[in-house]
């Protein structure tokens, strides 16, 4: 069977399954609380997998994912409120109209977040070192300051009146697309370049990889997907508040991918689900939740810096099996994208401007 045909069939099966599950979950057969957690997990998966592209596979360190999410959420919400409803109505106001309006809204959210990623990425990714961390941290803080002061989107009161779309199909379609995009990027020539940057930036450059270009590109894609995650969230509750995009949110996404293992897609998915369900189970300890998280993170870093699934054997075997036959020869050995232990052996090198005390 030709490859495109096989992929097409798989895609159709996945979509059919999503529609089927959508049917199950929309029709009030299940506890709405359970359905809500499930859908929030779907949004978390989109965010975690997209962050893993830049943090796990490219080895750069972004800690402002919630900022890009906020940009996507607010821009798409603004579109939906001011133009989306009209667009849907002018197309007949039926299901088709909404599908078109939502698709446009999602694309706008992703595009604006991607542009924000470009603006943040260009100054900080030209340099080697930890500048991206501090710039994204700053970006995340500043975006909240701005959102609190823009009256057109409700300011500090929050933005309400966004059309509500609680659709299992839509949320998980975006999540699956994110996974497919990241998986395909990682297993392409582009992905090889990203992994080579993570393993040794200097060597990658010597081999002819335009490191700045690849890093910025990966960062823009990652930000755009975070924006799409924000779009889902905006239309999930129909209400946005700048408070929900503060640093804590970025940190939650970060701990999802670290728990799951940097550079592991399956790990990110599991991390996203676990860290969405866990707080619900720990409701009684809400006050101590973040204390527990931060302690967990420190202990995890000391005892198992590659994350829980960082180099788990079954995972590797699973990946090998999945890859067999679809990979052109020669692409194999360099692939195994999980193994931050190789990152660990990277020699210390000062960043430009990283200087000695004087």
């Amino acid at each position: 069977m030709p490859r495109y045909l096989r992929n097409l069939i798989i895609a159709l099966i996945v979509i059919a399954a999503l529609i089927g599950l959508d049917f199950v979950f929309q029709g009030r057969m299940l506890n709405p609380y359970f359905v809500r957690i499930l859908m929030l997990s779907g949004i978390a998966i989109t965010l975690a997998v997209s962050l893993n592209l830049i943090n796990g596979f490219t080895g750069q360190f972004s800690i402002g994912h919630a900022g890009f999410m906020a940009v996507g959420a607010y821009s798409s919400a603004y579109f939906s409120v001011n133009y989306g409803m009209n667009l849907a109505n002018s197309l007949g106001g039926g299901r088709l109209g909404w599908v078109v309006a939502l698709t446009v809204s999602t694309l706008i959210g992703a595009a604006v977040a991607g542009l924000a990623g470009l603006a943040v990425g260009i100054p900080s990714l030209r340099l080697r070192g930890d500048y991206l961390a501090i710039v994204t941290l700053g970006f995340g803080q500043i975006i909240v300051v701005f959102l609190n002061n823009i009256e057109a989107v409700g300011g500090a009161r929050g933005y309400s009146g966004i059309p509500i779309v609680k659709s299992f199909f839509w949320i998980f379609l975006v999540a699956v697309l994110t996974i497919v995009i990241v998986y395909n990027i990682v297993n392409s020539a582009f992905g090889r370049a990203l992994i080579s940057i993570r393993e040794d930036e200097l060597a990658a450059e010597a081999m002819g990889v335009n490191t700045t270009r690849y890093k910025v590109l990966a960062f823009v894609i990652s930000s755009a997907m975070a924006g799409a995650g924000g779009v889902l969230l905006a239309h999930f509750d129909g209400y946005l508040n700048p408070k929900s995009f503060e640093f804590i949110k970025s940190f939650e996404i970060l701990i999802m991918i670290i728990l799951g293992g940097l550079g592991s897609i399956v790990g990110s998915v599991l991390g996203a689900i676990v860290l969405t369900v866990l707080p619900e189970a720990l409701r009684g300890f809400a006050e101590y939740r973040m204390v527990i998280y931060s302690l967990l993170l420190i202990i995890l870093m000391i005892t198992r810096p590659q994350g829980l699934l960082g180099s788990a054997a079954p995972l590797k075997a699973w990946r090998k099996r999945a890859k067999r036959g679809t990979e052109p020869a020669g692409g194999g050995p360099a692939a195994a994208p999980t193994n931050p232990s190789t990152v660990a052996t990277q020699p210390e090198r000062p960043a430009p401007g990283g200087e000695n005390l004087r």
Partner: protein
Amino acid sequence: MSTFLQQLINGISLGAIYSLIALGYTMVYGVLKLINFAHGDVYMVGAFMGFYLANGIGARGAQAIGMNPDGFIARGLLGGGAMEPSLITALVVMLLAMAICAAIGVIIERLAYRPVRKYSRLTALITAIGVSLLLENGGQVVFGAEPKFFPELFGKRNIELFGGASINSADIVVLVIALGLMVALQLIVYRTKTGRAMRAVSFNLQSAKLMGINTDHIIAFTFALGSALAAAAGVLVAIRIPRIDPLMGILVGLKAFVAAVLGGIGNIPGAMLGGLLIGITETMVVGYLSPTYKDAVAFAILILILLFRPSGLLGTVAQEKV
């Protein structure tokens, strides 16, 4: 003109505080190449230590830890009548807070950073974020999330200057103490044996080790020094603006880090200069543009430096070696 002068005075006073915090960032980056995200939170802890030293932990807190509510710790320096509000009290409170935070800094380094030093820098960075969140959220649990009001450690009054501007005596105290601490730091780094060892470690950790320097001690000492300066900054800020809360370190820490980058990270005079520039720019924006976006200023400056002079104002471009 008087507005300008007034903003300049406020800016220098604020900038001196940023400089003190920036010094801690720059020193730790110098020896470990680590952005110590927790540094801003050590500054917060410093402010709270000052608060508790001056006020005591209160009768209820004392009972909770099984102490006599009439004891010295329960009532603090001011509450117990041990000391009257005066400059000496302020100095005692600040020095004790510095000592406590120096110890906290050493403990953080020993328990969290040293075990991950053998791994990649990314691991260390994530650990630093973890420590930062632990201090913020632990602070909310221990100190309480609601803001607290710092007691007056000494009587403040406004002093009229020429041109209609005035300067608060608190600002003068802040400036003098900050300047004194910076001079002391210069003396430690350039005139003592330990300071020389610090510079050697920052130059090359491996070689320093081969030369017989106990690098672990020097790194711990660097953390103690940086944390003590952050604690001093915390108490000084609380003297100027008495409102303190467990999350006060996030934005200030970020701005101080920008100050360190602006001056050239790893460069001690650079951190001082960067802090002053950030402080002055910020108050000017508040005075002449809009107070709303004062927190965006440091970020805009950061982007500009990274675009045009990533090595900072006083930094030299490091040759990259393979």
